[in-house]
């Protein structure tokens, strides 16, 4: 030990701690498999099960008019692909029954005097929704209104033509162009969200659980009486876990880009650097949690609360613009909010630092605070 600089012995200690941590991670292959498999599972779940665009709504129909025009309207509903006309009944009562029994989610009732109503110029179609599914009601209502509107246009055009007008074209059209995601592909929106949430959950849990477990078992006390400094312990704990987190991120990216064909527009280097910062601050957050939590159960409770808030408030699934200011402010305290905006900016829009320096600044400041706090609060003593 003589003739060795302080730096050299510190490097040795950190090496010893990293080596131990790595062996432990690799030997616990069940956990490792879960860590590496979970993102893939999650992506497929989000992509195929949690589909946010609602179409093909099972629909029950009572066409009491049985006319040519009602048939045209129903055809339009069917071809829109928003509604699947699956069940035909003969009364409003039966339509409601079908919805109540869960055979359909939406119902269409066309009144008996539909043809006459159209001629008079004020026809009404009754659309019934199962209100317990708010998403379907929203999408379905919008779709039904649009279809009715188009149908009205057709009827008006026919009337005008009969009245002698040569060519009819409606005076106003809205034209929408969706930037960055022209096909409204859900995965383009979801992938950055999945990255943000998974990294947050993974990094916090990795360090929090492993430090608290060592504390509970008494391993920490045995390591604390070695010459290892708190800095050595933190670096030794973090580096192997950074590797795991980066590997996880790589898996998500590869599956996202090659399987789900999510485009990556911006600078990969910028993405990698900011993700590394986010990973390190997440791991530091875990160390901080471990200084508060006394048992693994407590640590788990804290991380689940953070995870739940992150999923709801950071814009991962629900747009932050529609939140009341107070709720949105709480979301603003969670770093995932900024990381999500940043990686959506880089991946989907391909923008650089000039457009998002404020978000990057917040992330950097948060990272520095958490890392310094973790290093300060991680004790070299037991009390």
């Amino acid at each position: 030990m003589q003739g060795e600089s302080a730096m050299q012995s510190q490097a040795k200690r950190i090496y010893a701690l990293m080596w131990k941590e790595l062996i432990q991670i690799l030997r616990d292959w069940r956990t490792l498999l879960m860590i590496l498999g979970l993102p893939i599972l999650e992506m497929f779940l989000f992509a195929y099960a949690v589909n946010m665009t609602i179409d093909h709504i099972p629909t029950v129909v009572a066409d009491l008019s049985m006319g040519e025009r009602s048939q045209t309207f129903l055809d339009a509903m069917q071809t829109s692909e928003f509604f699947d006309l699956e069940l035909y009944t003969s009364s409003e009562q039966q339509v409601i029954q079908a919805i109540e029994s869960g055979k359909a989610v939406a119902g269409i009732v066309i009144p008996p005097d539909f043809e006459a109503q159209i001629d008079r110029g004020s026809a009404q179609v009754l659309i019934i929704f199962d209100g317990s599914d708010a998403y379907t009601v929203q999408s379905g209502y919008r779709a039904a209104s649009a279809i009715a509107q188009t149908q009205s246009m057709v009827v008006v055009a026919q009337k005008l033509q009969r009245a002698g007008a040569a060519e009819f074209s409606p005076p106003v059209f809205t034209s929408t162009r969706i930037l960055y995601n022209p096909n409204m592909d859900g995965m383009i929106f979801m992938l950055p969200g999945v990255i943000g949430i998974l990294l947050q959950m993974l990094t916090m849990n990795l360090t929090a659980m492993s430090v608290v477990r060592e504390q509970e078992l008494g391993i920490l006390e045995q390591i604390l009486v070695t010459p290892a400094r708190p800095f050595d312990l933190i670096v030794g704990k973090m580096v192997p876990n950074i590797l795991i987190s980066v590997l996880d991120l790589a898996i998500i990216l590869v599956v996202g880009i090659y399987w789900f064909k999510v485009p990556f527009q911006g600078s990969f280097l910028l993405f990698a650097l900011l993700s590394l910062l986010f990973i390190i601050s997440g791991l530091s957050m875990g160390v901080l949690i471990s200084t508060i939590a006394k048992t693994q159960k407590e640590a788990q409770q804290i991380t689940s609360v953070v995870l739940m808030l992150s999923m709801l408030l950071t814009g991962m699934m629900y747009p932050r613009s529609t939140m009341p200011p107070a709720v949105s402010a709480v979301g603003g305290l969670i770093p995932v909010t900024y990381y999500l905006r940043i990686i959506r900016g880089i991946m989907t829009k391909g923008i650089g630092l000039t457009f998002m320096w404020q978000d990057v600044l917040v992330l950097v400041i948060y990272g520095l605070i958490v890392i310094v706090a973790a290093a300060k609060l991680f004790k070299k003593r037991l009390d």
Partner: protein
Amino acid sequence: MTDEKTIVTKNLVKQFKTRNGVVTAINGVTLQVHRGETYGLIGPDGAGKTTTTRVILGLLTRTGGESSILGYDSMHDTYQIRERVGYIAQQFALPGDLTVMENMQFFANIHGVSREDQKKRIPELLEFAGLEKFTTRLGGKLSGGMKKKLALACSLVHEPQVVMLDEPTLGVDPVSRREFWNLLGNLRTEKGMTIFVCTPYMDEAERCNWVGLMYKGQLIAHDSPETIKAMVPGRLLEFTPSEFAPARDLVAGMEGVTEMQTYGLMLHVFVDDLDRRQQEIQATLADQGITCAGMREIEPRMEEAFISLIHKQESYERSESTAE
């Protein structure tokens, strides 16, 4: 060299703040451990043995007094102490998912032991601990006794001058306990190592050269085991009365009986004059129709001395509180 002090505390105080106020775990402990000595800190559970060990090691913040190892202050020279001292915590655990060999290498590396030294030292220590056949076994898969031996081997890998062991044989079978203490004996005779051990077992205390008796945060006696045993006045009679409860009450009130302790259905009675009191006790009990089986004089052991000293301390405290 013989009177060189390895561990020193002076009026050591440790207080914990709890929700119900301040608890004093160590209340002015002064002790010295000399080089090459095996010092046993004995006392009932909750006496403050673990806390004392942790404060001396600098694992807990000291509230008052002084404490040092090898001249290094517990609070300020924490890392000098950690480079020179081996320690096994009471609720210790080594990483269970590392093998015996990996555990040894981990502690060697973290202490900065060079590769060449490791090549020589680790096989030696494994042989010393009787673990040379289990190098590839996972730490978590070892038996209780083997875990303790591995912990001892790991705590010695940096060739410390002092080892501090907190109840090292807790939950270990008697055979392994004996083996473990034989290992400690070898360390003392072959390497001249200073060993500081906390234990609630009196037979282990007898294997130390110096014993400190801790009770309610205070050191109520410290001396060699022989002297401590001699501290109890009078001689000791052991017997098994045919009727336990009445015999106990009768004997306790007799003249010349300085102290009485119960061991299961046996009575241990300290008397001032052996021949005279033995006859008196037998006669008194015979009057009540109680016979005494196997009455004989025995050497007081640490156990009797320990209980006697605690009784004395308790009655002293009672008189103190009534005096107020």
